[in-house]
């Protein structure tokens, strides 16, 4: 690999040095001020009163229970949306049917709904005055202002992630390999397990990483349905808000720094998977490398 881009090697596609310096300077300053500084400030604010204070803040019992709830919500939402993503992309890419484009648009829908509205809809359906509210009350089941509501809102906002990654990937890979497997006598599960899954595993992982990051970090939707009951219906992002509103800034940033670390881990994992995906699609045959 050369150290310059192919554009830099041709006079027709490179700008005068001054313009190039100006573009780099403008774009990187913008990046620094608007993206990098907020990230750095999370960590400096968190460690502002020293390491001991930091560890005390993140080991506080309410923070621990918030972590457990966040992990629980993600542990339910991610696998459910993973199964859905695989089923949806199998139906959409391996078969032809009327209304396919509409279905793809509907799958994307949760991305264009405001998080606040995502929370609101579950209050309307399951809240005390909602459609099924009285039935749930009679049976002593609480959905809203309780854990199930948080899980439902999390599933909604992370709904499209896996399907969105898989549909274009499986579309691009075509049906030939699965057809060959079927002709050779493989049944449905064998075809999926030995042919499709190895081909889509990196795309699948990519979707899961993004889905998980959003599941653990969702704020608006979860805020609407949670009721903010300390130690019971608080996720980590909601705990950040509570601490911040109590003017306990250092603790708020300490807990926030855990989420920022998670975000950085997500970006690293994402870059690695992107690199693998690129390698795989550049390989001469997708089958050779995987069996």
């Amino acid at each position, binding site marked *: 690999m050369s150290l310059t881009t192919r554009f830099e090697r041709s006079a027709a596609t490179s700008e005068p040095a001054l313009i190039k310096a100006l573009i780099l300077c403008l774009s990187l300053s*913008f990046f620094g001020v608007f993206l990098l500084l907020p990230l750095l400030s999370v960590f400096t604010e968190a460690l502002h009163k020293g390491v001991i204070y930091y560890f005390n803040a993140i080991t506080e019992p309410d923070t621990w229970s918030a972590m457990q709830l966040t992990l629980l919500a993600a542990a339910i939402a991610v696998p459910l949306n993973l199964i859905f993503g695989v089923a949806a992309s199998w139906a959409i890419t391996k078969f032809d049917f009327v209304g396919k484009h509409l279905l793809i648009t509907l799958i994307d829908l949760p991305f264009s709904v405001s998080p606040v509205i995502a929370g609101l809809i579950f209050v309307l359906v399951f809240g005390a005055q909602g459609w099924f509210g009285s039935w749930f009350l009679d049976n002593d089941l609480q959905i809203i202002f309780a854990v199930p509501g948080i899980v439902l809102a999390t599933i909604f906002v992370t709904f499209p992630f896996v399907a969105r990654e898989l549909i274009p990937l499986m579309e691009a890979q075509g049906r030939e390999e699965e057809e060959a497997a*079927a002709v050779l006598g493989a049944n449905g599960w064998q075809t999926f397990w030995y042919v499709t899954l190895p081909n889509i595993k990196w795309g699948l992982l990519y979707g899961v990483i993004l889905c998980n990051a959003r599941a653990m970090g969702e704020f608006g939707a979860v805020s609407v349905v949670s009721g903010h009951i300390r130690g019971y219906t608080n996720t980590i992002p909601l705990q950040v808000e509570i601490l911040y509103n109590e003017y306990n800034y250092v603790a708020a940033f300490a807990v926030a720094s855990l989420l920022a670390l998670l975000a950085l881990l997500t970006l690293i994992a*994402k870059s690695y998977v992107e690199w693998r995906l690129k390698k795989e699609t550049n390989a001469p045959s997708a089958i050779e490398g995987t069996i």
Partner: protein
Amino acid sequence: MFTNNKNSIFPGFGLSLGYTLVYLSIIVLVPLSAVVLKTTSLSLPSFIAAVTTPRVLASFQLSFGMALLAGLINLFFGLLLAWALVRYTFFGKNVVDALIDLPFALPTAVTGIALAALYSKNGWIGKQLEPLGINIAFTPWGILVALIFIGLPFVVRTVQPILEEIELELEEAAASLGASRWQSFTKVVLPILLPALLTGFALAFARAVGEYGSVIFIAGNIPMVSEITPLIIITKLEQYDYAGATAIALVMLIISLLLLLAINGLQAWSAKQTGRTRQ
């Protein structure tokens, strides 16, 4: 309707499509339809009254105005960043490239408190601006800063792959025909990038209109001045004004749906122009 699948050699059509439709209905369609049905409990005049109070109108103006402004700023700087990432070599390029997605990965509440701390009077940036008489935190400009943060990756990530695929030869041909660098940018490169730029802008705009977490900490939330529409929905919910909250939500949902249709149209146009499949 499904006739051509009778001969398909793949199994599982009924199972996978059935599961997809049931799960989609339970999680997305039925709950969303609650918004529409709940609104029908209001008569048309009271619906119109609920969504046109001065406070609600001011919030629409603020949410849409700031989303538009943030989108335009990101359009310009997003293009510059994508250009730098694709065409230039510089120290730390891989790190910058990976961090562009930070707003997708960083929880919005974390963004919100970080921006509020940065732009408040004792913050790193607020401290510099204070002597100049510029206040960002707890004013509408704070909202703009938050919306710039969350919108930037949409523009960069839609423009970047298209920019990467542009053939060198196009610009070489333009140069050999006597075009200046600026002419070959505006007449050759920009038209190719246009659908992607518009898509990125629309995606950033759609996200910004509904954004809540990163905005509320820095906005100050003063009614008529810096109160965004999603916050009004929450306030109404807390006052048990479900019908009022839902009416405003319906207006926002309709606008999101229109935006989604526009984005799909733009992507189809982009795919047609560049020969790429939808991503």
